């Protein structure tokens, strides 16, 4: 691994996402409202919300793997996103929770919110394959 452990990928940087906090060891990702994440006028695009959930989920699982001393790679199998509230034109946050980390797969739940963490605007449920790194 040559990259910084918590460096966000190009997609996240393009949408101005940044690690802003930490909850139970998992990084909280913040995403400001810009034209690049807008859907219908003055609302977030569902795809941008999904992107924030994805980055939070990936960050949480990398964190969980590191805590186990593992350098395994991950591969996303699927995702279900529930959109609960319209994302308003303001800062949005997301955090992932690894609900199960096994040897071959992981279940991750990610939550996105704006003013109140107890009022999520969207939830993502992801499955990841855990793949041991091939020897170089």
């Amino acid at each position, binding site marked *: 691994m040559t*990259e910084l452990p918590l460096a966000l990928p190009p997609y996240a940087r393009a949408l101005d996402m940044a690690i802003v906090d930490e909850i139970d060891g998992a990084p909280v990702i913040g995403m400001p409202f810009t034209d690049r994440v807008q859907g219908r*006028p003055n609302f977030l*695009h*569902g795809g*941008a919300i999904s992107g924030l959930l*994805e*980055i939070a989920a990936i960050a949480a699982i990398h964190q969980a793997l590191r805590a186990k001393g593992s350098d395994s790679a991950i591969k996303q199998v699927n995702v279900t*996103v529930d*959109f609960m509230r*319209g994302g308003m034109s303001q800062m949005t946050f997301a955090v992932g929770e690894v609900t199960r980390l096994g040897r071959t797969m992981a279940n991750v739940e990610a939550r996105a919110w704006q003013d109140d963490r107890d009022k999520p605007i969207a939830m993502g449920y992801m499955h990841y394959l855990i793949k041991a790194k091939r020897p170089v």
Partner: protein
Amino acid sequence: MAFGKPDLGSIMPKGAAFDPALVNKIMGKFGHSGFLDMEYVGHGDDWVELSVDWREDLVADPETGILASAVIISLIDNATSMSIWTKLGEFRPQVTMDLRIDYLRPSPSGERVYGRGICYHLTNSIGFVRGFAHNGNPDEPLAHASGTFIRIGDRV
């Protein structure tokens, strides 16, 4: 904050048949869809296909160049949403209720991604959709999707 994106309801005059190519010319150039540079590919009675080109700043895994999965979600979200309006023959305000994507394989680095959205059932309030993504050959899908949209009255 105000941005330049026009209101979809005002683009499509009442009574005019929904034209996905025309709507994407506007919808695909603003906001998140504009950032992804979504292009219209084709449509039928109940489906719409859009595409997004591979770009370095859309990558989620710099080691492999694999696109962020959310790029596929955005593509499928727009294509399925437009498939409802296409099947209806008119625009109606709606929001995505949920969307599920199964990734059969990664989209290779450098390759354009196509997303086809199909509306397979419509009720007064719900649009049921499915879709798939591919790299140019619909017979070799890279992802399958299903989801629902809910009509939101006049609250556009």
